């Protein structure tokens, strides 16, 4: 399930329809849980130790291939508006996917994550695919090489008992997983720092997105789809309505 960041790498296989399907994906979660770090890991495969609270681009794209389709994630980061409970509904409007992030070393961040999930289920697109990501697992594990969630389940008792550890896990994986299962969410534990689980979150979301449904012209697609009245302001638009020529103004 290779992640592909440029088009040329894809054009090799002729049977594949090359038009990527755009998927709007939003990140939500308490401040400093690592939302931006997860995006940075996924898009640029890098990590910054003392990342500033998000300002800047807050809007990145990345392509991923799922089976015979290419998904182009359009990734929205929160830009800090949620800090004072002032996130605009526009943010998660018509998002097809969301990653709700908490920090495994802070129990309160899971509560916050749960309230975001509730908000999404109430306000967002009813078909939205939501993934719950427990980030910063590198802080609570001795084991650096392989941190797939399944394996983590096994050894976290040991970690929690380790009183001498400066940072302890506050959210057991099973607790979060049970919550995710009962709420219909995908669940992962991740480390943006080490890159663990990050690709997996995005890949699993890509697989769960109801792509065929999205390709139906009536329901979606971004601006400029033929047949709809949608328009793309960044294109000149001359003639889209089949009129252009009759008025030379």
């Amino acid at each position, binding site marked *: 399930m290779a992640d592909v960041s440029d088009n040329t790498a894809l054009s090799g296989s002729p049977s594949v329809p090359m038009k990527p399907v755009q998927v709007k994906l939003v990140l939500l979660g308490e401040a400093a849980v690592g939302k931006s770090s997860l995006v940075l890991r996924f*898009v*640029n495969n890098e990590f910054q130790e003392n990342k500033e609270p998000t*300002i*800047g*681009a*807050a*809007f*990145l*794209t990345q392509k991923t291939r799922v089976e015979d389709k290419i998904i182009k994630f359009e990734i929205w980061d929160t*830009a*800090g*508006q949620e*800090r*004072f*409970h*002032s996130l*605009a*509904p*526009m*943010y998660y*409007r*018509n998002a097809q996917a969301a990653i709700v992030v908490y920090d495994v070393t802070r129990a309160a961040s899971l509560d916050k994550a749960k309230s975001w999930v509730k908000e999404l289920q*109430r*306000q*967002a697109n009813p078909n939205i695919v939501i993934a719950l990501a427990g980030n910063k697992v590198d802080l609570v594990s001795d084991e650096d090489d392989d941190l797939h969630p399944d394996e983590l389940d096994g050894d976290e008792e040991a970690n929690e008992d380790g009183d001498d550890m400066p940072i302890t896990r506050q959210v057991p994986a099973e607790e979060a997983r049970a919550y995710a299962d009962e709420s219909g969410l995908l669940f992962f534990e991740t480390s943006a720092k080490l890159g663990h689980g990050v690709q997996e979150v995005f890949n699993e979301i890509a697989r769960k997105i109801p792509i065929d449904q999205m390709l139906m012209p009536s329901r979606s697609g*971004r*601006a400029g789809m033929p047949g*709809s*009245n*949608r*328009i793309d*302001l*960044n294109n*000149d*638009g*001359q*003639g*889209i*309505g*089949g*009129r*252009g020529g*009759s*008025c*030379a*103004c």
Partner: protein
Amino acid sequence: MDEQYDVIVLGTGLTECVLSGLLSVEGKKVLHMDQNDYYGGASASLNLTQLFRKFRGEEKAPEALGRDRDWNVDLIPKFMMANGELVKILTHTNVTRYLEFKQISGSFVYRDGKVSKVPSTEKEALTSPLVGLFEKRRLKKFLEFIRNYKPEAPVESPDLDLPNVPMSQVYKYFGLEEGTQDFVGHALALYLNDDYLEQPAIQTHKRIMLYTTSMARYGKSPYIYPLYGLGELPQGFARLSAIHGGTYMLDKKIDEVVYDESGKFVGVRSGDETVHAKVVIGDPSYFTNKVKKVGRVIRAICLLRHPIPNTDDVDSVQIVIPQNQVKRKHDIYVACVSASHNVCASDYFLAIVSTIAETDNPQEEIRPGLELLGEIEEQFVYVSDMQTPVEDGTKDNVFISKTYDATSHFASVCDDVKDIYKRVTGEDLVLKQRPTQEEEQEAMANA
């Protein structure tokens, strides 16, 4: 929160949000607050709960209307001109990336008790049922002249020296009937009353050109509209501001605007916290003692279960009722959008009928508009004062926006934005093209 900002902005209406966005991009430290728990102020789009809370108090929305998330009901009826200034601001700041737009499907005008498509090209003029046979030729000639007019080129008659003759003279030159003048002045140039007849014709030329070039851009009407309602516009600019460091606080009680002994703005108090800034920008509701009333607008938000009759069953439309046609001094507008714009549940249509109130019984004044709608499922009527700042803000560093007026599109809002921008910064607003998303991402990856 006891911090120093460059600018505090009060109210998240479109004017305030565009200014926040522009100033944040330029590196100003902006704090943006709103007493409401939603974005958009007077230019918000409300969900069902918010709509009923605003207009019906305790009364809950009927279950049959469905879920909150399906409704985004505009408080003010405006459409965007495809070639207008707001589109320019949106594309230059790249706020377009957060929004999706659709065309409004029709532009209609009322004449002699009937609604018909507004003809905007010579070809349409020739087939329009709006005008009689001989008038068609005259209208065609007039539109041809407007389209080909160049300010620097010589004109064939002193009657056509547009900067220096009133519009009435130009109409006379082409021999246009009064009914035709009504729709040219009100449905193409979108004047709200007949004052323009005695003003320089060049202004009318400019407005007709805006209409016709906007029309030519996408084809069905000169108007475009953001999916999920007009309230998406302020939210888009608020995000632009936030991304450039703007701080956002909704649902924030503003207890006091604080001034020094000389009456200059120093800060804003909320509870026992005070935030300081050099200047404050805000909508009139935050500065009731610094604004004056210049008129009233009445708006009736109507929920329908059908398209507006006699408009070819389109999903969205604007209808202009020129003042003369109903013996008034100001036009009545009808603006309609529907489920295909993600503003209401499927099978519903939202129409707003509005005009500038001329009497003590404005409800009666909008009747000609309401009568065009057919059966109305729910109706929310409100009259609001139009307010404008008493002073320009240079003395006290308080810069107040104007209330959203009764015009059909956003030209006056953009004028207000530019005007406030200039008063706050001392410079003209020059829109620079912002880097695209791809360019930004490239720069990040290479950093």
